[in-house]
């Protein structure tokens, strides 16, 4: 492999999922689909492993590939640096774990048949977005992600999930229309779609500023930043468990990644301090509002979805932290970016584990009413244990990855002399603890009531071991990340030029 060079590996990350999507349509039996998917997922894992290793070894810090040999003004470039490599590795890991989970999750044959091709299309879109270095190609990947995730949400086939899917689709299309408008403006102004050429030519004029605003509005809608989060709880709360997990863990992060790319390098000259500060304020509101709603939520999946709204708020603290107190210090943007990337990984793993635990709960008990979880720890000990560990990471208690992420975030806030963000981070953690411990208290501490009500009418089903173990592995992984954070931090620092 090494003789070809690592750059030649980049297209495989998009081609492999597409092949998998086609093959899972051609071989519709359950076993064939899961087997094929797991094999291709493993191959993809190996490719990502080779790429990340190559990236560590490279001094230049990024790998580029020109599709079909056309140069960047005309053709489309694929590129990868530390930040996108981390997200690709995360996508690959979660993809594998969630696929393993999904092999046992669906009880309905037809649902399972439709699930795999859509799942792989979503994966192709995500990888494509992280790899593309061309703003129009990114638009296409955004739409692939949007359409695939809407179809996956609609797999629930209940009225709730159909309504949620339709609303999610309209919101997504609105967001990408704004983005496409910005692409048209940028192409008119600079005559190029390439990341690096745009970054080199970008100026601070009205057109660029309008484009940046349109991009920010469109992508904030897709990322569900408060006050544009209204669609998220319903969509994430009513989808099948593996779909909720991938939506919360990866899909919202994809549009955030793009937003960060535009603000940090592509349109950097048009960025104003007021804009950065405003995004930070919205993030802070998101943290408090999301956690408040999570504390109030009646259903467990809704609670986890609202907690995603809050966690997205933390991500947006990246923007104010990009402003360094004094311009002489070069290290601060990297510090903020490192903190946020670590946060993304920690949250993605914890949230995926939580949604899997919630999915198990619904499978076994038949509902996810928080009030009626009392004493359920006897029936689903492993899933509740998973939920607890993932919760610790979300709150940010040591030794979890969430703790390290918040620690880095606090450091960055104090380094740039913006202590008020630190207060928000700490307060958000405290409130998250209330939300999580409320569930744990009911499930672990309160005795099971002996009433022959609703929840006892369903016989307790046995859960396949794999389903409990997948979530548990991810939850434990967040703990291990807390103990050994350095490789992740090193990876993000690769290729951060500006």
């Amino acid at each position: 492999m090494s003789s070809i060079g690592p750059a030649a590996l980049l297209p495989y990350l998009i081609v492999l999922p597409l092949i998998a999507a086609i093959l899972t349509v051609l071989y519709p039996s359950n076993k064939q689909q899961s087997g094929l998917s797991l094999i291709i997922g493993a191959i993809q894992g190996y490719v990502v492993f080779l790429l990340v290793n190559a990236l560590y070894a490279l001094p230049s810090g990024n790998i580029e590939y020109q599709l079909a040999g056309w140069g960047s003004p005309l053709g489309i470039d694929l590129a990868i640096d530390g930040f996108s490599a981390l997200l690709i590795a995360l996508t690959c890991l979660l993809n594998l774990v969630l696929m393993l989970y999904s092999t046992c999750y669906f009880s309905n044959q037809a649902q399972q048949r439709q699930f795999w091709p859509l799942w792989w299309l979503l994966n192709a879109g995500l990888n494509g977005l992280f790899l593309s270095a061309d703003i129009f190609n990114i638009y296409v990947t955004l739409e692939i992600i949007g359409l695939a995730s809407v179809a996956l949400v609609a797999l629930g086939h209940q009225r709730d999930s159909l309504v949620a899917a339709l609303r999610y689709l309209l919101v997504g299309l609105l967001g990408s229309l704004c983005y496409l408008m910005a692409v048209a403006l940028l192409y008119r102004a600079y005559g190029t779609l390439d990341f690096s050429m745009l970054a080199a030519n970008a100026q601070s004029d009205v057109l660029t500023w309008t484009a940046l605003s349109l991009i920010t509005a469109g992508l904030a809608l897709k990322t569900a930043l408060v006050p544009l989060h209204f669609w998220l709880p319903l969509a994430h709360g009513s989808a099948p468990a593996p779909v909720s997990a991938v939506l919360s863990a990866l899909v919202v992060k994809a549009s955030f990644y793009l937003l960060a790319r535009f603000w940090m390098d592509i349109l950097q000259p048009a960025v104003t301090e007021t804009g950065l500060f405003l995004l930070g304020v919205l993030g802070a509101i998101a943290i408090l509002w999301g956690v408040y709603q999570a504390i109030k939520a009646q259903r467990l999946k809704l609670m986890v979805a609202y907690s995603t709204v809050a966690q997205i708020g933390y991500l947006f603290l990246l923007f104010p932290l990009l402003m360094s107190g004094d311009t002489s210090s070069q290290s601060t943007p990297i510090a903020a970016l490192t903190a946020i990337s670590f946060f993304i990984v920690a949250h993605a793993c914890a949230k995926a584990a939580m949604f899997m635990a919630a999915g198990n709960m619904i499978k076994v008990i038949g509902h996810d009413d928080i009030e009626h979880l009392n004493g359920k720890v006897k029936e689903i000990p492993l899933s509740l244990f998973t939920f607890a560990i993932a919760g610790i990471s979300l709150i940010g208690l040591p030794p979890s990855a969430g703790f390290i992420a918040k620690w880095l975030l606090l450091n960055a806030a104090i380094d740039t002399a913006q202590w008020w963000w630190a207060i928000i981070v700490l307060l958000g953690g405290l409130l998250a603890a209330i939300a999580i411990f409320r569930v744990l208290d009911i499930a672990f501490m309160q005795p099971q009531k002996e009433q022959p009500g609703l929840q006892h009418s369903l016989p307790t089903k046995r859960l396949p071991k794999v389903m409990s173990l997948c979530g548990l592995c991810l939850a434990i992984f967040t703990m291990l990340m807390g103990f050994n954070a350095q490789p992740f931090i090193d990876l993000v620092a690769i290729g951060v030029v500006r």
Partner: protein
Amino acid sequence: MSQVIIYSILGVLLFGIGLFGLIAAAHILRKILAMNISGIGVFMILVANAVGPDGTTDPIPHAMVLTGIVVAIAGTALALYLSCQINLDEDKQVEEESS
């Protein structure tokens, strides 16, 4: 040159009308139509400005518009299918309740 400006302004107007419709319209079909209208606004801006430096036609925006149309069709189809399913569901519920 004024042609380019006229078409660009019209494109921006269409985009705005579509956005307004997408947010303000109550009926789902109107929302889907509004989405298509604002998409057409963007396409119009792209095509109107597809002029190279020396007055020749620049093919890249045309390629972008073609891709955009394909994406818009896919999105519209999915939205129509979903709204059909929701309506069928509603009808079924009404029937069950009446019987």
